[in-house]
């Protein structure tokens, strides 16, 4: 039973008169607990694809099932609820909430997305901060920590709701090499510990080596493993 299944998945953008075929009939599947990377040059459709999988956008044609749900049937509100329950997000620019501490940033989805009882929250947040090596800095604000540290906090935030799937669009693009490796390895460690599926996109060939499954996108088309 695949976690993600795409059949003839296409996305076409209409920009005035011009049509941009960002994705052209993709077919692929992603099994649970896998560590997948989509690579490809700029404009190849990586972000477009991750947005579709993340229920942030809808396909133009074809079918995309995520955890057995046909994502094109979800309305805006249902999609938001679906993301809150099943998907964690890691962003290229970290996107921590600046007015919240490290601890509060990780706790945010539990309080404002999922309503987890407070007894359970603390233990989950601390365990994740420990796992990503950020426990000591938990009372710092985002502007007091480095980029690599921010992305580790973001990984913890993405995992705190115990999602089935974590999506990361170019999570290492704003990090230096060493830090990028560390973040990817933390993601891999978490996948091994929790069995969460990670899908990340990158155009950094060296980082790609860390992925277990690599799909190459080229001009909106999938180029096998």
């Amino acid at each position, binding site marked *: 039973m695949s976690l993600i299944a795409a059949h003839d998945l296409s996305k076409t953008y209409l920009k005035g008169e011009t049509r941009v075929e960002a994705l052209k009939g993709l077919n692929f599947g992603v099994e649970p607990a896998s560590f997948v990377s989509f690579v490809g040059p700029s404009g190849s459709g990586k972000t477009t694809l991750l947005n579709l999988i993340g229920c942030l956008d809808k396909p133009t044609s074809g079918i995309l099932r995520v955890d057995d749900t046909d994502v094109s049937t979800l309305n805006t509100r249902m999609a938001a609820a679906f993301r809150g329950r099943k998907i964690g997000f890691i962003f290229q620019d970290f996107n921590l909430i600046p007015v919240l501490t490290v601890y509060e940033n990780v706790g945010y*989805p539990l309080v404002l997305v999922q309503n987890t009882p407070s007894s359970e929250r603390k233990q989950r947040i601390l365990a994740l901060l420990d796992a990503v090596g950020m426990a000591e800095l938990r009372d710092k604000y985002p502007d007091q920590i480095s980029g690599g540290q921010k992305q580790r906090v973001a990984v913890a935030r*993405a995992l705190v709701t115990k999602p089935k799937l974590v999506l990361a669009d170019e999570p290492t693009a704003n990090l230096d090499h060493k830090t990028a490796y560390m973040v990817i390895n933390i993601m891999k460690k978490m996948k091994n510990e929790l069995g969460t599926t990670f899908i990340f996109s990158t155009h950094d060939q060296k980082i790609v080596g860390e992925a277990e499954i690599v799909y190459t996108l080229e001009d909106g088309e999938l180029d096998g493993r």
Partner: protein
Amino acid sequence: MFDLFKIAVRNLMRYKRRTLLTVSLVTVGVVSVLVFISVSGSFKNMMIGQITDSFLGHIQIHKKGYVASIDSLPLTLNLGPNALQKIEKAIKQTPDIEAYAKRIKFGGMFSNFVETTNVRLNGVYPEDEAGTVPLLLSRVREGERTIRTGEILVPELLAKGMKVKVGDTVVVIATNRDGSVNGKQFRVGGILESATGPGGRDGYIHIDDAAEILRMDTIQISEIAIRLKNFDKLQEVFDRLKGELSKELNKQGKPAFEVHTWEKLSPFYNIARMIDVMTFFVKLMLIAIVLISIMNVMVMAVYERVREIGTIAAIGTLPGKIVAMFLIEGFSLGLFGAVVGDILGIAVISVLNVAKVSFNFGRQKGLLLSPGINPQDILLISIIVITISVLASLQPAYKASRMNPIDALRHV
């Protein structure tokens, strides 16, 4: 741990200067309104007190049609003993009435043996009158503060014009309801300061003297003035009295009596109304200030935080929560402004009280302004400010909640 309020307050603290500016604006608005309400309210209450306590009373009862022709003080519209009995019974049944005074009002000629002029007179029971309009006798400038039989309190303008002094002998001549003329000598007992409004320049004599001049076998009352224990119950008492008295019908099947509050009897009521209207517009201005400043700041807040909104929307925050987040921010701004404004407003009002500001009203000099504000007004203003703050945040908050996360995340 943390909640929407904490996020809101922290976001407000993020732009301290702007938040401070907005809160100050709201504060200034609240202080202005509170001070205006209290000063104009105290002015108004003092004026009403001056008018009702000097001569008018809070409520008056007459025979139907009397007030419409009050300029001629028609003796034909006086109340006979039967009617009076019914009215007094109704008054005694009504709670919250402190005192009432029966008056015979009539117009006559006033002569100092050299010149003659018109005069409007009230024949009163001195004790009832003092209980009903407690400021009346304080208007006596010269002479004793009493109304004795054989004596007359002469309004000051008349005394001046006729050059009469306390102790002089004068004659009052009047036509009774049958048309026959009668006169009586009086000693000038006192000179009465004018009060603002119709009836403020009437003279006063004892009711027995009035009955004598008018050759009444039984006393026929023109007017009954009523004083309430609690002025705030004016409407309530009025409704009760009116309800009670409207049962009494005349031969035409219409109510035999008419009941009026001071509002219908004094032109100052219109000034009081004007003050109320001004207060209303000052409140409207406050609403406009709050609306514009809060809306401005919330539109800015949403615009500055587009990427944050994109982030929280992407990770599954429902639109309703995003709306709540911004509404609470607006609410907090309004709350701060209202609370600080309330405190400062009360402080300013206290200072005004300590400073003892005085003013003149008509011929009454040196009235002390004692502005006060009741808790309901403070509460009402605070609720208005906070509600408007939330309403002003509604549109920006809604806009934030409707953002497409992809576009919002791409925003720089």
